[in-house]
């Protein structure tokens, strides 16, 4: 039994680690079902758990998470940190660049083809070609310009660094690439059969053939423009995005997109609209909730306990609800006290910062030159920031601790921000704006090229289009965003003409006449 435990844990841990690395591959190979990411410490109830009837639901707590082969034991926090580091430092995936590289090759091939069509006869059987005069030159010029337009528009539209890797193929893009490939391939086929083999002598026909290819490529690019860029611009659906941990929600209007593209769109907006996720702000203090736990225990004295569990728990819940408890009272007073404390600390902070900012002022150019007899110490922004940081440091630290933001702001970051504000002549209020309100997640990001890992969880295949009632969620390690889709209402706009001369008014009367 113990041996089985050990081996099982070994496999489970290794699988978990692999799972983190190959999350994106997993989801594409697993079909339409959801991919779940387990955080360490939770009991695993997946296909590998073959425990069956003697499943002990507490085994996640009593069994060590680390494999039996290692002798270290690490706490849950450490493990979370390790997995976070693992995720942040995944090597730059080459998969990210496969799509654009393929597209680049294909478009290069497509652009070079007309030139090849023109050059090959010249190179191979130049003497046998009929000369063609002015019409050919006209065609050359138009060909050159069309190729230039194709080149520039391809660069503008398609040669952009991709901002997201999607779990499945981007259907429209693949469709277009296949179309272009088939198209160019069929042109080459015809060229090979009709021109290269019989050594066609009519050069003008060849030039016209190349020109028609370029025309068709331009039309395919128009199609690509419409499918990839324009179709989703007109809003058609309203997405409600709710964060699962604290209920922060927003509504967005999007056009016709597939689920995966809509997910990327939502995540773009998430980073700049939603206040940053603060795990320290989530729970009610234990002192309020713990009262509820001390209910009465229900002991069953029957032989068979399996079928009575729901009845028991329901009875307990009903009894607990009937019992008068004042935890809402405590919650109310605790909230009021917390608000008061925050306001007090905020007042102290604002005063300290205002005072600190009065200690320095910007040195004007003329002053420096014209007053050599009062040599004041001239500082650069960094030193100025350090000089005035000291009086406000304590108030700042206390405020951050009260609002539980101390994890987001290190001393270094505060100094950097202070330096930035001083350089740009900002007032104390502008300096404090960053700390008084929780900003969007973008404000706290460190720039690294690795990217953020999100998992799209959906019951429908992720390349299907948005429609009413669809729900999908975007999961990260410790929270998820749940997205609900509703179509925008159809608007029936009527018309009512009001004659400007029809605006007339009378006084309200209440006259009294004596008779």
């Amino acid at each position, binding site marked *: 039994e113990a041996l089985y435990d050990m081996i099982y844990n070994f496999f489970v841990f290794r699988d978990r680690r692999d799972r983190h690395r190959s999350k994106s591959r997993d989801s594409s190979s697993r079909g339409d079902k959801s991919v779940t990411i387990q955080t360490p410490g939770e009991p695993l109830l997946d296909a590998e758990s073959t425990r069956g009837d003697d499943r002990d639901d507490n085994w996640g707590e009593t069994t060590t998470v680390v494999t039996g082969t290692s002798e270290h034991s690490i706490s849950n926090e450490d493990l979370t940190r390790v997995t976070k580091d693992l995720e942040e430092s995944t090597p730059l995936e080459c998969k990210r660049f496969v799509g654009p590289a393929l597209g680049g090759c294909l478009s290069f091939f497509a652009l070079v083809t007309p030139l090849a069509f023109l050059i090959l006869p010249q190179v191979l059987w130049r003497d046998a070609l009929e000369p063609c005069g002015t019409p050919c030159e006209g065609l050359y010029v138009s060909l050159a310009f069309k190729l230039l337009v194709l080149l520039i528009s391809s660069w503008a539209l398609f040669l952009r660094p991709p901002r997201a890797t999607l779990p499945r193929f981007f259907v429209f893009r693949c469709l277009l690439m296949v179309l272009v490939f088939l198209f160019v391939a069929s042109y080459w086929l015809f060229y090979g059969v009709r021109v290269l083999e019989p050594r066609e002598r009519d050069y003008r026909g060849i030039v016209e053939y190349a020109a028609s290819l370029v025309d068709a490529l331009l039309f395919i690019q128009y199609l690509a423009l419409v499918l990839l860029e324009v179709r989703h611009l007109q809003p058609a659906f309203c997405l409600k995005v709710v964060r699962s941990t604290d209920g922060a929600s927003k509504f967005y209007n999007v056009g016709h997109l597939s689920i995966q593209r809509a997910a990327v769109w939502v995540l773009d907006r998430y980073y700049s609209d939603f206040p940053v996720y603060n795990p320290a702000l989530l729970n009610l203090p234990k002192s309020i909730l713990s009262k509820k736990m001390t209910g009465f225990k229900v002991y069953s004295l029957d032989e068979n306990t399996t079928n009575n569990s729901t009845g028991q728990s329901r009875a307990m819940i009903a009894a607990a609800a009937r019992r008068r408890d004042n935890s809402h009272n405590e919650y109310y007073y605790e909230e009021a006290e917390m608000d008061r404390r925050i306001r007090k600390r905020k007042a102290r902070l604002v005063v300290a910062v205002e005072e600190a900012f009065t200690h320095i002022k910007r040195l004007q150019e003329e002053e420096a030159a014209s007053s050599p007899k009062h040599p004041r110490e001239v500082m650069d922004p960094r030193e100025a920031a350090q000089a005035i940081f000291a009086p406000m440091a304590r108030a700042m630290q206390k405020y951050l601790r009260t609002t539980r933001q101390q994890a987001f702001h290190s001393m270094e970051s505060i100094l950097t921000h202070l330096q930035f504000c001083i350089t740009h002549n900002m007032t104390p209020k502008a300096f404090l704006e960053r700390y008084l309100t929780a900003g969007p997640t973008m404000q706290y990001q460190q720039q690294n090229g690795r990217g953020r890992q999100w998992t799209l969880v959906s019951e429908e295949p992720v390349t299907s289009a948005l429609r009413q009632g669809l729900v999908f969620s975007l999961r990260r390690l410790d929270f998820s965003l749940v997205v609900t889709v509703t179509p925008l209402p159809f608007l029936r706009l009527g018309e009512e003409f009001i004659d400007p001369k029809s605006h007339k008014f009378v006084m*309200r*009367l*209440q*006259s*009294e*006449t*004596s*008779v």
Partner: protein
Amino acid sequence: MSFVPGQPVTAVVERVEIQKLRQGENLILGFSIGGGIDQDPGQNPFSEDKSDKGIYVTRISPKGPADLAGLKIGDKIMQVNGWDMTMVTHDQARKKLTKKREDVVRLLVTRKSLEEAVKQSKGCYHKP
């Protein structure tokens, strides 16, 4: 005393007969009226239902003909000499009351206390 448009109005009324008093050129009755279908019913201090656009007595000159005849302030005038007063404009009501050829006006007026008096008397009657 509330009415529903289109439905007949039921009210307990009192018959008041006022003799007009000659004062110089004019025949006066000694009270003032307010209300009418062209007036703002919300401003009427005497009506119970603030959408009632009927004609109300707003002031009674003391010792005038109306006072002597028993008209009370706040009464709603239902009829004047047979002419209906529940659906008239203010001016039409004034005209009906100040006809130069008539020296007496017979009014049907209603007030809240009349209804209550009737109810009470009915109630007293029913007690065994």
